[in-house]
């Protein structure tokens, strides 16, 4: 019976966060600090003709102005980076600032003004005058969609069966196009770095989901041995993918600090964030579904086109999960990309999945209406018992239970099938559902535990906590397996002085880092057991392996006979030890290869719509998630709520607007780019259907940060259709689209 795992625990960093003591990247106090302010360009493509910095340099407090003319060249990017949706490492070709006169996108950084104060730097930045040789640009994915091609990385799309012929022969077909605009992460904390050089050693405080990734990036940029670079990021004020890759500002900040021989701080403005870290790409999807009259899918053809930049191929694998959600013998589902003169897109919460599933799950709803079959029933009819892509069994899959329990809880049986058939007074009521899916990923990760004679433990791993509650979950896992109390465990993260962990992306932190902490605790146990059994009269002689014993309340005892134990402090004293330190690297088990490992969920939403004014309110949402074991339901529930709120934003509000004449983002701020506010969010309930999955990892956990969002935009769009009879296939569903 677990003592901590599976029980609600308040965040161990809670007091630090509610008292303002938690320190984020820009908040570290460093002496002799200079402030950098980035100057953004004003054309979408071309070259810089001239930069006049004279007026800016004359203003009070300016230390130096860096442009491509005087900025030192950074070393070649030798690093690779992790691509969460594909679970692979790929060559990093990301954009770096001030390295040439070439303009790749509008609002590209063209200079960095460094001054004694923030006010001085911001003002001088306005006085830098740049002229350009502008070239014809293209920022409209719609206009170039016909030129879309397969991305250079990732697997080429395989065809399953004979989709074209099966589609022709299908008695019932639906076909439609769905559009998702560019969206931006907009974490509340702006990206920031403080760079401090001590000789040739570099320390950077950064907002990042991947301290080791930033370290590699900086080491290659400045030609340093990796150990000479230290990256520190104890708190991250939201990221959602916007800090997975090393963005351009850490190297820019470190470059300025090196040149000026003093610490420099650079913080993005909200506007600079819109071209400073990537975004969810503009995605146009065409889906055709063919089925027999009973609703069984005969063919699926799902083509996604999204934009990338001219700098590199980015591919969010939009259609990836289409291959695995429903049983269907004939399928073609490529994701194509088309370059545009915009910054490179990046991963944004539930990357690819939420975009692809928006289209697929709306199309499934359309098919349900074409067939006059309940939308939920259609999903059960096409339930995939094994992975349709590989034919392998699922390591666990309780999706059917999610559908049924969610439907029960929601009252789905009272849903009237006909659109526009349910009302609450003047308001139209709509009920919609959709499936959520995400991979149960795991990456190699390391953790170190120092267990002390007083029963306390220091646990470290260079992961991050962008909000899911990693500090708390790792504390719980360590306490569970070290047999002490959470308050005796101090877990630290976000620093390259700690053992290596993967980036916090792709909902894999608990499975990867949690497994490492678990393994390190077992290693401590094994060490203590070995020490105990050095004694001839050890009461633990019956233990063949560390798994035969457990640590609990200061004792190491036999699982099979808890009356046989040693007192750990006495054992350590006898061996002249004050502490035991073990580092453990966990790796995904080869057993996983025999299975498809995925997390699933079902989402049910209710919308109420004012038919005259077109305003949609999501009045009720139920998330039912099957994602293995839940370690801390309190924080997991928060993740699910966050997923729904993100789904509401994507479905109803969010769009990055570009004036294609200028190729410039015109709403790079939070007054014009709308994200949900408190009044947009109503009841959200979560049910966890736990799965006993010993394949995915020793803790049996799957990710959930992305999962909770994946089906929500489709469920909302389907509910809007049910309420109004209007099928809106282009997000966001703003009031004007419903008049």
């Amino acid at each position, binding site marked *: 019976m677990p003592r901590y795992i599976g029980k609600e625990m308040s965040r161990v960093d809670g007091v630090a966060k509610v008292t303002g003591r938690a320190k984020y990247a820009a908040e570290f106090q460093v002496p002799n600090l200079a402030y950098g302010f980035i100057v953004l360009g004003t054309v979408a493509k071309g070259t810089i003709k001239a930069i006049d910095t004279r007026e800016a340099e004359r203003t009070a407090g300016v230390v130096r102005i860096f442009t491509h003319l005087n900025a030192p060249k950074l070393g070649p990017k030798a690093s690779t980076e992790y691509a969460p949706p594909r679970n692979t490492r790929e060559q990093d070709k990301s954009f770096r600032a001030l390295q040439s006169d070439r303009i790749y996108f509008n609002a590209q950084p063209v200079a960095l003004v460094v001054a004694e104060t923030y006010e001085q730097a911001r003002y001088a930045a306005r006085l830098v005058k740049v002229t350009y040789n502008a070239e014809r640009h293209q920022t409209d994915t719609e206009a170039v969609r016909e030129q879309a091609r397969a991305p250079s990385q990732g697997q080429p799309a395989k065809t399953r069966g004979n989709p074209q012929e099966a589609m022709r022969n299908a008695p019932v077909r639906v076909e439609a196009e769905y559009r998702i605009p560019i969206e931006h992460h907009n974490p*509340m904390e702006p990206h920031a770095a403080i760079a401090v050089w001590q000789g040739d050693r570099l320390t950077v405080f950064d907002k990042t989901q991947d301290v080791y990734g930033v370290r590699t990036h900086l080491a290659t940029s400045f030609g340093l041995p990796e150990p000479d670079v230290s990256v520190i990021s104890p708190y991250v004020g939201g990221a959602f993918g916007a800090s997975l890759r090393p963005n351009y500002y850490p190297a820019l900040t470190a470059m300025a600090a090196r040149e000026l021989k003093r610490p420099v701080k650079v913080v993005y403005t909200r506007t600079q964030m819109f071209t400073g870290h990537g975004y969810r790409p503009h995605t146009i999807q065409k889906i055709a579904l063919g089925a027999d009259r009973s609703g069984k899918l005969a063919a699926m053809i799902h083509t996604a086109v999204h934009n990338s930049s001219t700098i590199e191929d980015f591919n969010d694998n939009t259609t990836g999960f289409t291959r695995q959600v429903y049983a269907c013998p004939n399928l073609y589902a490529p994701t194509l990309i088309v370059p545009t003169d915009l910054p490179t897109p990046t991963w944004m919460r539930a990357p690819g999945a939420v975009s692809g599933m928006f289209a697929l799950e709306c199309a499934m709803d359309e098919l349900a209406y074409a067939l006059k079959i309940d939308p939920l029933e259609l999903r059960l009819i096409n339930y995939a018992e094994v992975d349709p892509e590989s034919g392998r069994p699922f390591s666990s899959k309780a999706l059917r239970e999610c559908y049924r329990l969610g439907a029960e809880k929601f009252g789905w049986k009272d849903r009237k099938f006909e659109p526009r058939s349910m009302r609450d007074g003047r308001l139209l009521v709509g009920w919609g559902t959709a499936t959520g899916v995400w991979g149960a990923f795991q990456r190699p990760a390391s953790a170190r535990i120092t267990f002390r004679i007083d029963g306390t433990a220091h646990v470290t791993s260079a992961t991050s906590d962008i909000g899911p509650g990693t500090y708390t979950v790792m504390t719980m896992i360590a306490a569970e397996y070290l047999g002490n109390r959470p308050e005796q465990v101090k877990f630290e993260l976000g620093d390259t002085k700690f053992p290596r962990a993967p980036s916090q992306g792709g909902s894999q932190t608990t499975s990867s880092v949690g497994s490492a902490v678990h393994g390190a605790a077992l290693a401590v146990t094994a060490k203590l057991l070995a020490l105990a059994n050095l004694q001839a009269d050890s009461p633990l002689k019956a233990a063949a392996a560390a798994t035969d014993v457990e640590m609990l309340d200061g004792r190491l005892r036999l699982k099979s006979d808890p009356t046989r134990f040693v007192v750990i402090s006495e054992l350590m004293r006898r061996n002249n030890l004050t502490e035991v330190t073990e580092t453990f690297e966990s790796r995904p088990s080869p057993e996983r290869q025999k299975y498809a490992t995925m997390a699933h969920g079902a989402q049910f939403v209710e919308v109420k719509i004012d038919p005259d004014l077109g305003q949609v309110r999501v009045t009720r949402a139920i998330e039912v998630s099957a994602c293995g074991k839940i370690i801390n339901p309190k924080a997991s529930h928060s993740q699910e709520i966050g997923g729904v709120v993100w789904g509401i934003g994507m479905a109803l509000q969010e769009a990055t607007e570009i004036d294609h004449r200028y190729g410039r983002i015109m709403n790079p701020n939070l007054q014009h780019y709308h994200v949900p506010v*408190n*009044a947009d969010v109503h009841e959200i309930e979560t049910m966890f259907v736990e799965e006993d999955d010993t394949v995915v990892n020793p803790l049996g956990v799957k990710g959930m940060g992305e999962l909770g969002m994946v089906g929500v935009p489709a469920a909302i769009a389907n509910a809007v259709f049910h309420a109004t009879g209007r099928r809106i296939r282009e997000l966001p569903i703003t009031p004007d689209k419903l008049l």
Partner: protein
Amino acid sequence: MNDDFDVTSEPELTADEEALLKEMPTLTDIGQARRTFMGQTIAGGLGAFALMLLEKERALAALSISPGAVFAPAPALENPVRVVLKINGAAKALDVDSRMVLLDALRERLELTGTKKGCDQGQCGACTVLVDGRRVLSCLTLAAQVEGREVTTVEGLAKGDELHPVQAAFIKYDGFQCGYCTPGQICSAVGLLEEARRGEVSHVTEDVTATTTRLSDDEIRERMSGNICRCGAYPKIVAAIQEAHSGKESAQTWRFVEGDELARVRKEGATDETV
């Protein structure tokens, strides 16, 4: 860093971080979870967070100026304004650039980084502080404008070791994830509770001519809409504020599916393809 202002009274800005060890709220169970709720008692672990960072900063604070470090030729402030800032009960005289907003004065001059910069444009609420007891945005307030006013930041809400009830409720209900909007949310909530006590109305008040001091959840939602939380902790923020406002505990909105329930739907699923 702080040599450019006079400390006219002993500031609480560098309060002993050890005090953090004791700043623990008393928490109780919420709802009727199958699995019991673990009260937070990790004082030691908590204190460590702040201490670890302090240790890093202490090391950096000792850094001397590198040979060849480049400074601006004339770093003197243009348009300096001398202001006496009263922050969390301590008064300080400070010479600021006229362009400096209160937010930057707190974060860049006074080491009060609890107040957050989210947009710097009045569009997110992360920088909310209380001025003379009312919630305002420090990003759109010049430092010079608060001369003589009482400013309260998130650092000033707890009374010694005791968290403000709103802070404790945020922990209890998990009213945050990344924590970055949290100080602004909390200051905003503290201001809101006062506004409610005064009977102020909002956009969702049905009859603005009537007076009530009792806030529904919808009233709290509307009144907290000036504080964006991108992690989406809104329902839990509302629950926390509702409890601080009315003492009413909010129902738990998550549960584990029980084994017998699972067995039942699995059995039904085997025999029935309809919903």
